[in-house]
């Protein structure tokens, strides 16, 4: 018994000359190996594409059209089609996505069933397989909306067939959750006191949105739009039946035209080529262009977002 009347606790045995903790260091090592393997695989994939693709990507390749059964020539129609596709998608997508995020952030009563159902829909829309979006685009936009438009206008088949417009609207719905989530995240970084100051000065809610929230949330909105573009440029399954074409001798001019697209072109060159060896350089070149495009976009989005996060942390 000690002076305080408490039982003495025997001192723990001091570790003798630190026995090596084999199972422990094994676990740590295993986790490091897993992380290393993932990095290695990324390097291998990108390295393979870069090594085999760089020689193909010339000015003629970027600006020319496919020739001789796609064994020669370039990919300009696919680049052009991809750009049209994502521009139309962004035009349709951003107003809805940003509007929805603003409403969720500033107007919605968080506990109402309507708000909850919107959040539920956003969460689950993000998990719908992209091929199901393709089915939806065919069943809804082409077979329903397009057919009805043709019938109403007394046309033969103009709208009721695969087209640039329907493909971009399908992709817009696919990417709606991306824009809503990133925009709402960036609205949260706008300091609450600024919003309250604006309202306290007598500005209406919309004036606060227009002049305080949106200007500050702009980087986040851009991030969302860019991420959507990066994803939109690479998604093939939703456009398989809604507008992408194997080969077109002309560039699309109207929203009812079909179009060539980079991702779909990769698929076509990789699986439908009559002469695999002749197509190989073109295939690697197309993949390289597609990867460069999506990476540049993703990189921009990541940089914008990290600046945004820094601002959020800086304000506490």
């Amino acid at each position, binding site marked *: 018994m000690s002076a305080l009347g408490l039982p003495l606790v025997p001192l723990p045995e001091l570790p003798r000359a630190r026995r090596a903790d084999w199972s422990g260091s094994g676990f740590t090592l295993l986790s490091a190996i897993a992380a290393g393997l993932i990095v290695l695989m990324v390097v291998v994939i990108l390295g393979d594409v870069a090594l085999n693709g760089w020689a193909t990507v010339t000015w003629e390749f970027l600006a020319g059209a496919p020739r001789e059964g796609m064994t020669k020539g370039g990919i300009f129609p696919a680049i052009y089609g991809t750009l049209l596709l994502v521009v139309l998608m962004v035009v349709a997508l951003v107003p809805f996505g*940003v509007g*929805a995020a603003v409403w969720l952030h500033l107007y919605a009563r968080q506990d109402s069933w309507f708000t909850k159902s919107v959040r539920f829909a956003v969460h689950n829309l993000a998990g719908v397989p992209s091929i199901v979006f393709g089915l939806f685009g065919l069943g809804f936009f082409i077979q329903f909306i397009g057919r009805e438009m043709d019938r109403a206008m007394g046309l033969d088949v103009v709208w009721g067939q695969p087209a640039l417009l329907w493909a971009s609207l399908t992709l817009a719905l696919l990417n709606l959750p991306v824009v809503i989530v990133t925009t709402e995240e960036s609205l949260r970084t706008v300091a609450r006191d600024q919003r309250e100051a604006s309202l306290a000065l007598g500005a209406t809610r919309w*004036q606060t949105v227009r002049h305080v929230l949106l200007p500050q949330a702009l980087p986040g909105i851009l991030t969302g739009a860019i991420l959507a573009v990066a994803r939109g440029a690479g998604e093939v399954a939703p456009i398989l039946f809604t507008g992408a074409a194997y080969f077109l001798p002309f560039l699309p001019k109207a929203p009812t035209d079909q179009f060539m697209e980079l991702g779909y072109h990769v698929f076509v060159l990789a699986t439908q080529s009559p002469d695999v060896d002749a197509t190989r350089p073109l295939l690697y070149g197309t993949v390289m262009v597609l990867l460069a495009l999506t990476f540049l976009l993703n990189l921009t989005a990541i940089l914008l977002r990290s600046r945004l996060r820094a601002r959020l942390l800086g304000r506490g």
Partner: protein
Amino acid sequence: MSRSLALPHSPASVRARQRLREMAIEWALRACAFSAVAGLVLIVVFVFKEAWPILSNPETQKEASLAGFVATPLWQPVGEVPKYGLIPLLTGTVKVVLIAMLFAVPLSVLAAVYSSEFAPPRVREVLKPAIEMLAGIPSVVMGFFALMVLASWLQSVTHSPMRLNALTAGIALGLGIIPTIFTVAEDALRAVPRSFREASLGLGASAWQTAWHVSLPAASAGVGAGVLLGLGRAVGETMIVLMASGNAAITSADAFDSVRTLSASIAAELAEVVVGSPHYSTLFFLGALLFTVTFLINVAAGAFVERLRKRLAGA
């Protein structure tokens, strides 16, 4: 630029007009938010609508019916007598997804533990962008890589007679879902309060004991959510399996057989199908099936995230 603010002394008519404008804007924004709900509902309505003849139309049912889906052992939709048996497609999907999960889950969870528990900041600065790059690779490019490179490597190691098989597709698919599992699991691990780790380390536990006995159990719901989200993506992913699996509808348990999955069947066949035909309805039925399965998986993942939030907040 003049900004009109609703000052208290502005005339009543101006204020009334402004109030009207505010209301109109609020309803417009509410409509934007509703578009997400409408989109999800329309997907359900129109995918299920096109699949409906399978259940209701006797003409369609002569060729393709629920009973036939189960009883027919073969998937031969373009033969003289079309055969729509789902068993080969279901086994194929399960096989590829299982291989993908066996490959991706241990790698991503271990890497997430490494990143959140052990990695020095400098290593993390390499690991995280690498994962983001992997996430940025479009699935058609992953399919291309599996088809052109991975398939040949695997064949030279396994000497499998079929170059494109369930193993090739499964590993490529696993690569595609690693970012999903890693990101969610790592977020969950990093959300474990610092005090948990400090208490464990303070009691004399080593770093790996803390990771294994404290951090991982605390974040288990989040890790589970990551695994489920990865599973949902794997089931629905199309381009990778379409390009790397060989697409032969064979019912077997052999990982070296070529396989055809639900998603790849839709992608490969829908473009050449007559609208409204039994084959068309069958492919939409496969889509409805995919939607239902992934939807349930995602709802479950959402419940896991909710549980994690409660557990960490209540701690």
